[in-house]
């Protein structure tokens, strides 16, 4: 059985927290460049140009792309042949967050007692951790700093089977239209369909991690993604909501079987600062 020490997990997460906040994944950067070429609104073009300039400054000066360096969402895909040694895994992850956010001069945005005193925890912990046991002897760590501007626009719909495909289209379009400029368009739209309420929300969040330009491997789902992207970009919201034809860079749908009585759908919106970074131990 392969052993991985929690010290390695802590140091990897500390490094990822910094790297992820100073640079965008290549696919997101390319999508923003294509958006600048395609956008017809002069204001929209200007905004997209500013966003690309912002990326250049963040890269070179190690200033966060966005001041909202997010809730640290961490996905751990743990190979079933891995034995984690050392400390408590959750604490090891939080220690990585603590070190990364402090050493990287990243904003600490987490508050305890959220419905009363709202006291800042001071080091951006705790992380929101999702663990998955997968085949193999590797550990894949993904850090997704999720800004609240887009996260606050998340919606869950427990649709009826009768509402079907059209019901999903209506729900997604309504969600994006209502959100307008709030989630910092151009956005990536992550959609979960099926499962239970919490499963479909997690699928929507995981959909945000898929590379832009990679449609769903399922033809029917890929068609729905394409149709939704067209419909969303016809809404006219545009970059930052000031009007334009590029409201979304991509629509990603993840599907799971559902109960005979259910058609859950969740929409997770990701701002243009679509930061996520992975490491394989």
């Amino acid at each position, binding site marked *: 059985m392969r052993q991985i020490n929690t010290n390695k997990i802590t140091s990897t997460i500390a490094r990822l927290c910094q790297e992820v906040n100073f640079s965008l994944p290549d696919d997101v950067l390319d999508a923003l460049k294509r958006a600048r070429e395609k956008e*017809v*609104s002069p*204001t929209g073009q200007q*905004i997209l140009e*500013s*966003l690309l*300039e*912002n990326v250049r*400054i*963040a890269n070179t*000066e*190690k*200033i*966060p*792309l*966005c*001041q*909202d*360096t997010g809730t640290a969402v961490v996905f751990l895909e743990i190979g079933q042949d891995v034995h984690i040694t050392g400390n408590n895994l959750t604490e090891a992850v939080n220690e990585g967050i603590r070190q990364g956010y402090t050493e990287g*001069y*990243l*904003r*600490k*945005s987490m508050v305890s007692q959220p419905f009363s005193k*709202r006291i*800042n925890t*001071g080091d951006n912990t705790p992380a929101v951790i999702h663990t998955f046991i997968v085949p193999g002897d590797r550990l894949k760590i993904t850090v997704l700093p999720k800004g*609240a*501007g887009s996260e*606050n626009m998340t919606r869950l719909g427990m649709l009826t089977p009768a509402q079907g495909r059209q019901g999903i289209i209506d729900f997604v379009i309504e969600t994006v239209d209502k959100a*307008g*400029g*709030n989630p*910092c368009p151009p956005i990536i739209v992550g959609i979960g369909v099926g499962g239970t309420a919490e499963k479909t929300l997690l699928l929507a969040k995981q959909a945000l991690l898929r590379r832009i330009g990679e449609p769903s491997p399922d033809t029917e789902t890929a068609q729905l993604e394409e149709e939704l992207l067209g419909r969303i970009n*016809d*809404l*006219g*919201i*545009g970059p*930052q*909501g*000031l*009007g*334009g*034809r590029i409201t979304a860079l991509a629509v990603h749908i993840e599907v799971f079987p559902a109960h005979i009585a259910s058609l859950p759908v969740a929409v997770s919106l990701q*701002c*243009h*600062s679509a930061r996520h970074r992975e490491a394989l131990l």
Partner: protein
Amino acid sequence: MTVHKITTPLDDKTIASLKTGNEVLISGIIYTARDAAHKRLVETLEKKEKLPFDLQGQVIYFVGPSPARPGQIIGSAGPTTSYRMDAYSPRLIAAGLKGMIGKGSRSTAVKKAMQQYKAVYFAATGGAGALIARSIKKAEVIAYPELGAEAIRRLEVEDFPVTVINDIYGDDLYHKGKIQYRR
């Protein structure tokens, strides 16, 4: 399109000259405040106590910057989403606030207060915090330091780029922009 250059504090004549869609460069002093600071400001007004700064003619920037590295003036400093301040803004506008900088649309109550008391809502580019930081020349925490990123800061800005979303004539750029490009 002409770019309006304005200097804070803002008077009614300047406010009247600003129209929805105008590109504006702001210079002078602006104050930062977001959720927690707004709550405290309004509570202070309700108790008829003295505010940490004089609101007359001032501009509030909805931002919680990331920490500055040694030698930097400020970290990343882009706007936060404004609707969360809708519960507080009308009260501050009635007390003399003339401008707000954020992103995303405002409630009917805020828009009404802006028309009634002559105030303007500007948007800065969300997610461009590293770029925006360049127009901030000085930053100093003046109230609620225990709130960390949410403390009130006095910022000295030079040609700080914003767009007029809501003017005093009732126009709204989020509405106009969307209608223009909707198909």
